[in-house]
């Protein structure tokens, strides 16, 4: 018992780094009754480990609870909290204020996604394009029917697609893409990277049908390899690589 209290005492007396404040500028817009968006500024305390999401939640808690923001896991896993932070698409829960090197942090809703309110955007289109490329294994037999209990893969075969399976559908890549900026029908880097993820999976037999889906006028050919998608991806998916490898199949460089 005595030991427990001494540990507790020690933790209380441990000095924490000195707190500073930043100005958080939040874009406010409600499509139901606003003509355009405007910024509201809040002075928020922050430590070197404070994330942008925590700063926004601080605002919701103490200044204005009506700020609309979507989040869930707070650990870069659910893909809910994508937004434009100081001009670039990032995950709010994965971006520390200290790494932005600025006393002013501006948060805006992701580009190329319709706004629901403030920082929350609609994901319907991303989910539709994701679904369009058939994000599941296509083959005639199943693991239940097969004599082998499960479809085995070697570590090398897994390596062909595992980085693309890391995608959390956060939409940052679609927000950074220059083609998405003007083309409402482009299938987008997220869905294209997922098409590669399944095409490269040795268990999958749906390559031809997937290539057919993306080989159209607003499909893979609209990608100009600007690479911005890969630069903003928080999970190392590297959609630009997946898209070029996928295009290699259509151009006959890969089989």
């Amino acid at each position: 018992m005595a030991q427990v209290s001494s540990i507790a005492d020690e933790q209380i007396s441990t000095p924490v780094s000195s707190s500073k404040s930043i100005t958080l500028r939040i874009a406010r817009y409600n499509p139901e009754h606003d003509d355009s968006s405007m910024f509201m500024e809040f002075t928020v305390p922050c430590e070197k480990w404070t994330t942008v999401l925590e700063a926004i939640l601080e605002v919701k808690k103490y200044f204005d609870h009506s700020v609309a923001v979507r989040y869930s896991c707070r650990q870069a896993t659910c893909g809910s909290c994508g937004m434009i932070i100081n001009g670039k698409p990032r995950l709010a829960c994965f971006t520390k204020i200290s790494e932005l090197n600025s006393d002013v942090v501006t948060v805006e809703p992701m580009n190329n996604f319709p706004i629901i309110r403030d920082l929350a955007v609609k994901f319907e289109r991303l989910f539709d394009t994701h679904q369009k490329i058939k994000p599941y294994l296509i083959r005639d037999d199943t693991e239940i029917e097969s004599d082998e209990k499960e479809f085995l893969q070697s570590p090398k075969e897994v390596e062909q697609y595992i980085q693309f399976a890391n995608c959390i559908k956060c939409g940052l890549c679609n927000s950074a893409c220059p083609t998405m900026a003007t083309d409402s029908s482009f299938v987008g880097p997220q869905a294209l990277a997922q098409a590669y993820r399944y095409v490269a999976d040795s268990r999958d037999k749906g390559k031809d049908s997937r290539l057919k889906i993306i080989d159209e006028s607003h499909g893979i050919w609209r990608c100009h390899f600007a690479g911005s998608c890969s630069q903003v991806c928080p999970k190392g998916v590297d959609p630009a690589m997946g898209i070029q490898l996928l295009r290699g199949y259509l151009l006959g460089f890969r089989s």
Partner: protein
Amino acid sequence: MTQDEHKEGIGGMFNPTRYGIERVAYWLMRLSGLGLLAYFIAHIYETSNILRGQVGWDEMMQMTQTLEGHIILAIVIGMCVFHTVNGVRVMLGYGGIGVGKPARPDYPYEPASQNYRHKIGIYSSIVLAAAAMMYGLAVMFGE
């Protein structure tokens, strides 16, 4: 651009300041492509002046011998060289060549497709375009 769709629009597409040299290359490639298309149309008009006979042709040639004509031609040389060299880089990338190999991603997740080979390709295209422009200017103004 409707607020509904919240698309970044042409301004966002052409903004080269946020995503490194690869986005600058994308911007230069589009700009030089449009510039070359405009030059191609102007060039057809220019050479069609031969139909006006010797006088018409000489008049048109005079226009290219002015300061503005030299500068425009130097820009065309730069656009042509950049578009060609960077075009080879992009075409190789389109075939999946030089974009890295898939692997288990490790933090901090440096994207393999944005590798030094492509960066060297982009910087080389810019340097070669600048050198060709300077050579062109030296030839034209040295006449």
